[in-house]
């Protein structure tokens, strides 16, 4: 409303192209009771075509109440030693170090709980969560508690190969020859180390895009924690500039939690941006 300028034919006459060449004036509709404002602009492209640009914005009014005494004191005259003081005195310095309220108890408690939960999950048969990186067995034990650990060290067989005693020792022969180097991806058939690690990464992994540059792991932790336990958060940073690249991966321990997070947070407004939350497409093997 309002800003629409009356269009006069005389305006067009001044232009070389005549009435066709004149762009309609910018039109602003709203803001309505919800604060939504629509701006319709017309631009001319280089090739002469007219382009209509419609921008929809929401106007929010933030009311901050201030104590009049405080406002008045904002402009107090300096006195005493503060009078001759200048910025180079460095009396007031913002700490360069980020300081946190370091939680005492929950650190230990939570860790314990998670471990317990892990054990529970394992007993429930959701065994794919625990994969020993030493022997490749699923759901029996953690890597650090692998009973074959010493065997690995003594016999010197490659990590990722099955321990002796299991039937198919022959899988190792997939590699070129016994003495030559076998790249990890070729070792022990498809039970390779890299495989199991990647599998862990793709499990219940969701991708969050359109994040603002300021978003850190901690923020995502806060955002996604309410849906369930998270096993990994990865925020992509640009290696050169150190800025966030605007997307992140989050792995949930439980698939249901991930589903709920996607349903709830896809299209959620976060830091003035609309988040896109979806399943992370499994990485296709790079050659």
């Amino acid at each position, binding site marked *: 409303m309002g800003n629409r300028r009356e269009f006069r034919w005389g305006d067009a006459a001044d232009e070389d192209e005549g009435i066709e060449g004149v762009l309609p004036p910018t039109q602003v509709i709203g803001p309505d009771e919800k604060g939504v404002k629509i701006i319709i602009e017309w631009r001319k492209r280089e090739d002469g075509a007219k382009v209509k640009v419609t921008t929809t914005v929401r106007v929010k009014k933030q009311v901050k109440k201030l104590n009049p005494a405080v406002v008045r004191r904002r402009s107090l005259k300096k006195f005493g030693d*503060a009078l001759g003081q200048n910025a180079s005195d460095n009396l007031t310095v913002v700490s360069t170090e980020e300081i946190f309220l370091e*939680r005492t108890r929950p650190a230990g408690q939570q860790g314990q709980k998670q471990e317990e939960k892990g054990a529970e999950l394992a007993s429930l048969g959701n065994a794919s969560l625990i994969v020993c990186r030493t022997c490749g067995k699923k759901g029996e034990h953690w890597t650090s508690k692998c009973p074959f650990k010493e065997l690995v060290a003594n016999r010197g067989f490659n990590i990722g190969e099955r321990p002796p005693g299991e039937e198919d020792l022959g899988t190792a022969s997939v590699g070129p020859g016994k003495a030559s180097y076998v790249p990890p991806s070729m070792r022990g058939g498809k039970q390779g180390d890299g495989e199991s690690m990647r599998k862990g990464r793709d499990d219940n992994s969701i991708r969050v895009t359109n994040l603002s540059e300021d978003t850190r792991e901690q923020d995502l932790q806060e955002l996604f924690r309410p849906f369930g336990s998270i096993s990994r958060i990865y925020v992509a940073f640009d290696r050169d500039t150190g800025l966030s690249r605007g997307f992140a991966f989050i792995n949930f321990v439980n698939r249901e939690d991930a589903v709920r997070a996607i349903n709830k947070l896809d299209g959620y407004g976060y830091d003035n941006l609309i988040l896109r939350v979806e399943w992370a497409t499994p990485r296709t093997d790079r050659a």
Partner: protein
Amino acid sequence: MRPILLKGHERPLTFLKYNRDGDLLFSCAKDHNPNVWYSHNGDRVGTYRGHNGAVWCCDVSRHTERLITGSADQSANIWDVETGAKLHTFSFESPARAVDFALGDKLCVITTDPFIGNPSEIHVKRVERDSSRQSNESVLVLRGPAGRINRVVWGPLNKTIISGGEDSIVRMWDVDTGKVIKQSDPETGHQKVISSLAKSADGSHFITGSHDKTAKLWDIRTLEVLKTYSTERPVNAAAISPTLDHVVIGGGQEASQVTTSDRRAGKFEAKFFHKIFEEEIGGVKGHFGPINALAFNPDGRSFSSGGEDGYVRVHHFDADYYHIKM
């Protein structure tokens, strides 16, 4: 959070106080000039020049007009907050220590140390609005406790005065009669010097910190110990959050032993405890000396700590602080 470091003092901090609106922070130290800072950005507004000794304590009137400071130069001064002008000096025979304005700012209480034969005393003075008519007369002088009286505050409706000090006993005095009405039970009370005492926002209870490595929460009317918070180091300062059920306790190894051990062994953190559950929530590190002073902003969104290292650190809480679950 990134704390703001204020380096306005050259010697250890002794006391911190926010005004009621929470926009100004007053700091006292063993150097002679108390400072006042904007609490939101740490800009120094001014210093109060005129004391000639360590300043132990201060209090600010309800509408941030007057500041009273107690100093080791055997005086307590009243200042104009906004100009730094000294309005009046109360002189004593011995160093002044704790000061507190009563509700309504018509009375103030000042304690003095035992000094060359004088016992420690608690003086109640009338504070005139017009400082030219200010008299030096004490309305009431209380004697009795042995040793220094490190902190003194007014009880509800200005009917009582609560004091705590080196004799490790918390006393409640009747202002009308000048008698001790109640005192803490030696069994449940503190075992060593009481170093700090701070009231809750509503004045219904208060917290004391002691060198016996505990802080205790007391009912201000019954002097009953409600809660005890135990730490590993002597407590020099304690404060109650005005908004959440948190208390913050600061302290550390005694200053004389600091140089003999590692910084981490000193436990120079401000420790947060849950007020009701008495459970430790966490710690905020940063000082490299014991914490001598702590104060919560009346809005509950920031707190500041002052250390033996001469720094004041103003911490504005991160958003996650408000959602801490036990």
